[in-house]
């Protein structure tokens, strides 16, 4: 179950994420997977899953390649900055991270639009950024609990941080 179970979990997560993106337009439903993987320090999975996320988001989108790379890089950066101030396994951390991600989503779209010769619909952008900020903690809770329900052998052990899998601590 361990290796294969982990791969199956993330593949099912990716498919479910795409269905969520189909139902709620203009949000990134896969980003909570990245946060969970960073919390678990599961870099082996991150190595193959992150490029897949990038290719999926870029392929399904309508912008030239590059936006998702910056978007995920910013999330990794925010995660590492936030980790210095909070315990990265807590809901409070994810809540602040999602607020920062919502703001980053708006800023990145505004910055990338002139570079890619696209018009910016400010209202639509604010709506999607807010949706992103609201969606992230909810989806994180779901994925986090699902990971806790999995057999322990399918999850890699966190290197540092003792209570990474405890919510609300």
């Amino acid at each position: 179950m361990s290796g294969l179970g982990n791969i199956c979990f993330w593949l099912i997560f990716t498919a479910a994420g795409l269905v969520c993106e189909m139902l709620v337009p203009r949000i990134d439903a896969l980003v909570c997977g990245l946060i969970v993987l960073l919390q678990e320090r599961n870099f082996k999975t991150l190595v193959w899953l992150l490029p897949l996320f990038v290719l999926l988001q870029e392929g399904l989108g309508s912008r030239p390649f590059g936006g998702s790379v910056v978007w995920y890089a910013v999330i990794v950066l925010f995660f590492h900055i936030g980790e210095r101030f909070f315990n990265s396994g807590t809901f409070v951390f994810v809540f602040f991270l999602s607020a920062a991600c919502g703001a980053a989503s708006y800023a990145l779209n505004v910055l990338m639009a002139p570079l890619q010769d696209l018009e910016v619909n400010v209202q639509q952008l604010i709506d999607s950024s807010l949706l992103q900020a609201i969606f992230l903690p909810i989806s994180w809770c779901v994925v986090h609990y699902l990971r806790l329900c999995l057999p322990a052998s399918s999850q890699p052990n966190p290197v540092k941080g003792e209570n990474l899998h405890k919510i609300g601590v």
Partner: protein
Amino acid sequence: MLVIAGALLIFFLGMYSWNQTTHTLDDLSTDIGLEVGGAVLSPVRAAQDFLGGLWTRYVDLVAVREENEALKAHVATLETRLLANSEDLAELRRLRILLQVPVDNNWRPLGARVLSGQIGPNAVLNTITINRGYATGGRPGTPLLTNKGVVGRVLRASAHSASVLLMTDPGSRIAIFTQDSRAMGILHGNGAMRPLTVDFVPRDAGVRRGELLVTSGLDGFYPKGLPAARVVSVEPSNYSEFLAITAEPLVDLQHLEEVLLFEKTGQAPEVEENATSPSQFVGPPKPGKARRK
């Protein structure tokens, strides 16, 4: 830390510039992203349709009898109208043969199912995803329509899925003419749920409110004669020599389920073999010769 950040930034900008010229990463992400996305979303859409069909066909049958009667009356009206127009159609065929106007048969219609609207954070344009790609008739540039009118054209395609730029997107441009006054113009979008605009129509064109806008085929993307939009308002522009025309799409772009692709077959237009060859075209006399006489 700053050195690493700088190196990453330079690497990203280099990759971005390289991709802008070669489109390698765009093509790769389109092939993988759209293909995987289409493969995941197709069964979901099929299940959604199945459950929706179960509900509408077997459970939600309120007012079906009344609707059936209204539809029967509508069919009868349409049949009468079809009979009345059949003579005009026959006349049009005869005139086309007489004038040797070739029938545009180099477009082949193909059905496609809409998989979803905008997906993901990168879907900044007004797009939909369909279950046909470049291997199944949905090459980039292929026009899409429904029984009511034009929808848009294929923007990016993988082998079996494609994303379609809707006509309401600000980047969409369609060469059109007005059906009655035959004035040419360019129809462009202003975003979802916003009226379309028609540019470059002269002030003396005589365009009326409610007039139909049909594709002229001059943009090379859409076949000639497809209904695209209906004129909502016409007034002289305050800023240019043209009319300020707004229009609305004929198709409800928010609730699309099935669409029709018009694939180019590459066949030359047919010319009737037994039709008499036209007499030599004689244009107006050259100005110089006329003056000499």
